[in-house]
């Protein structure tokens, strides 16, 4: 593995439809993620960021290139994707076979603060609770590599802040490599070690975020990074008092 947990070389992905139009979704892409590193993947809609996550998660085939991904890996989706006919704990334990499955699922639910909703039906959960159940379902597999596909996009702003803290805490506790797909620059700057910016299927920037945690959006370096990334994403930020806080997808 030569130091990197995730290693992507010359990755290209084309869909039948896009190939006809002569436009691959991902073009000749290289990406390394170190063990325990938290990488945010930013890009506009159609930049290919979700495709990259899906290829890394094994949900989609690559057209060419090489791919090394540590196992086990696990995904938290944008929609929680809980099975509505299984109770929360059964959803968390889905597909688990080894050891005391119930005990492991309970421990994971405890970690995300859902111990009081163990036997609830998913349709009775709030958006934040459902997403925490999704996080527990991913973490219970003790992944070496955790893929987060805009998991906070459909959660209200206050709950999202709490989820950010929770994700950072659990990441530090378990230490998986993380790839967070997001369109929210502030979210990337609050959570990740590195921001990778994707545009039309290529990585156009790889920005280290050298800020201490917990991070302070008021820090001058934070604002500077935000401006730089927004620039890369094609958002005009020349005005000195720009109050743009994110890029909508």
């Amino acid at each position, binding site marked *: 593995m030569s130091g990197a947990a995730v290693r992507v070389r010359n990755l290209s992905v084309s869909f039948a439809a896009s190939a006809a139009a002569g436009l691959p979704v991902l073009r000749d892409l290289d990406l390394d993620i170190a063990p325990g590193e938290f990488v945010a993947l930013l890009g506009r809609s159609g930049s290919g960021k979700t495709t990259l996550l899906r290829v890394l998660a094994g949900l989609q085939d690559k057209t060419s290139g090489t791919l090394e991904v540590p196992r086990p890996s696990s995904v938290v989706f944008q929609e929680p994707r809980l099975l509505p*006919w299984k109770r929360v704990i059964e959803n968390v334990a889905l597909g688990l076979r080894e050891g005391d499955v119930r005990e492991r699922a309970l421990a994971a639910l405890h970690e995300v603060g859902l111990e009081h909703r163990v036997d609830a*039906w998913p349709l009775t959960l709030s958006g934040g609770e459902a997403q925490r159940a999704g996080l527990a379902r991913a973490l219970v597999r003790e992944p070496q590599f955790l893929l987060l596909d805009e998991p906070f996009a459909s959660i209200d702003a206050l709950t999202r802040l709490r989820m950010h803290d929770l994700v950072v805490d659990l990441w530090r506790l378990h230490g998986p490599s993380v790839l967070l797909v997001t369109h929210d620059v502030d979210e990337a700057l609050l959570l990740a070690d590195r921001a990778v910016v994707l545009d039309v299927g290529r990585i156009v920037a790889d920005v280290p975020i050298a800020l201490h945690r917990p991070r302070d959006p008021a820090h001058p370096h934070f604002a500077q990074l935000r401006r730089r990334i927004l620039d890369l994403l094609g958002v005009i930020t020349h005005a000195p008092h720009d109050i743009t806080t994110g890029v909508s997808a």
Partner: protein
Amino acid sequence: MLITAPTTAVPPARFRTGPIDIRWAKRLASPIALVGLWQAGSSLGLIPASKLAAPSAIFAAFWTLAISGDLWRDVVVSVGRVAAGFTLGVAIGVAFALIVGLWRPGDLIFDPPLQMLRTLPYLGMTPLLILWFGIGETPKIALVAFASAFPVYLTLLGGIRAVDPKLVEAARVFGLGRWETIRQVILPGALAPALVGLRYALGAAWLSLVVGEQINADRGIGFMIMDARDFLRTDVIVLGLMLYAILGLVTDAIVRQIEKRALAWRTVA
């Protein structure tokens, strides 16, 4: 044939003034009045017994036949025919829905002919069934089975196809194999529409039994009715119709109970 059951919603508190549910009493008033008028009309000779027997005569017929045991013998025979035909039909419907819904070649091989058969007016098939199976129990059970199979086939297949592909994908990510995915994701996801289909199938089963039993039956509720016609016994005819209705309602209530338990996850507070 199936009578719409009165609503079971909890009435507003102002109606719940005592142990007797006044709203229920109010809803029962007009049917009771109607039966009263019917009885009065019969007693006064306005409704001839050869056209429609009086409620009291119907009850008397019920009493006589219940005591002699003929009634129960016929009911058991009819219920037995529906049970056999319905079970067979549901099994066939489920089997084809699974093959067509889960196996791509099955869709091409079986779905087109099944969609064609579905449009046949199955109640008109009785003469053909008699030629095929004779005049015993087989053609009656076959008719019920034919009628029950399609609602289950169509709704279960529709349910399987409507399962959210995102859930199937998630199951794959979390390590479920193909059979586990079918068992834990696809079938539970298709259960709600399939149970609606089961209720349709039950209605179709009773309806086709009524038709099937009117031809060459020597036992069963249908025989009871046809036999009564020969003797102008309108009381027994109406009694037979009421038995069909009651049995239809009872079996429908059973499926609804199954529905309530199996789909408890949908009852969101």
